[in-house]
């Protein structure tokens, strides 16, 4: 542990390595963001309103370009509502008109009613610009760690404790 502090060259190399890992992750995230044209190309499902298709903690890959066709009825989209910070993943069930002015209505598969109640006051439909991306890829369960850590903060303490134990028990 302390030996690295005595050797500045080694310490610098470790710092570089750490920075490299961080910047690679950031670069991949932003690269994916550019390719998919979506501000957050990978999202974790936070609610059960699309069950049984998506459970909490599932990972979704989003795509926000319309190469072959417009965003259509039946697609599962992630959208933002003015004044709410948490994006919502629901299915488009109605579409009136075409182009950027098309009116879209969404509904969660597991919900009885459509999303009119979830939209902003006075808003009856979504527009294309409200949509962050359409779900194209799916990976189950992988994002559950983030939900666990944010909902049970004591788990962070437990993890820190375990790391400390490892440091104490490890020999130089």
């Amino acid at each position, binding site marked *: 542990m302390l030996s690295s502090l005595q050797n500045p060259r080694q310490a610098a190399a470790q710092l570089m390595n750490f920075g490299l890992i961080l910047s690679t992750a950031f670069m991949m995230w932003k690269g994916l963001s550019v390719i998919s044209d979506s501000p957050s190309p990978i999202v974790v499902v936070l609610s059960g309103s699309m069950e049984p298709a998506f459970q909490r903690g599932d990972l979704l890959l989003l795509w926000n370009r319309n190469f072959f066709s417009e965003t259509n009825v039946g697609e599962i989209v992630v959208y933002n509502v003015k004044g709410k910070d948490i994006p919502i993943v629901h299915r488009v069930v109605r579409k009136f008109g075409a182009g950027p002015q098309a009116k879209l209505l969404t509904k969660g598969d597991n919900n009885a009613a459509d999303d009119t109640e979830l939209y902003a006051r006075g808003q009856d439909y979504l527009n294309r610009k409200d949509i962050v991306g359409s779900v194209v890829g799916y990976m189950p369960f992988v994002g559950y760690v983030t939900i666990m850590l944010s909902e049970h903060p004591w788990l962070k303490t437990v993890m820190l404790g375990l790391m400390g134990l490892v440091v*104490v*028990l*490890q*020999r130089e």
Partner: protein
Amino acid sequence: MAEQLLDQARDIFEGQIDFEGQKLAELLLNVALTLVGAVACFVGYFLQDIKLAVYLALGGTAAVFVLVVPPWPFFNRNPVKWLPVGGTTPPANLVVDDKMFK
């Protein structure tokens, strides 16, 4: 006393194995885990049963953990033979860390 206890705990926790054992552990890990993945895929596909595939993969992975992580005796069959302490004087021109031993 506390130092001794900590030292014992460290010994158990560390689970050192010898060099031949490290080579064997690496080989076992790679081969066994790849095999587990392949078997899970094949069985799952031909029986069209994804639950079975997941159980096979997880069970197999647990078995690999048990096989590789603890310092089993078969990882310690080729202990390093150290030279006796203070037995012979070191060779005249032995170079260690760029420093001549004299």
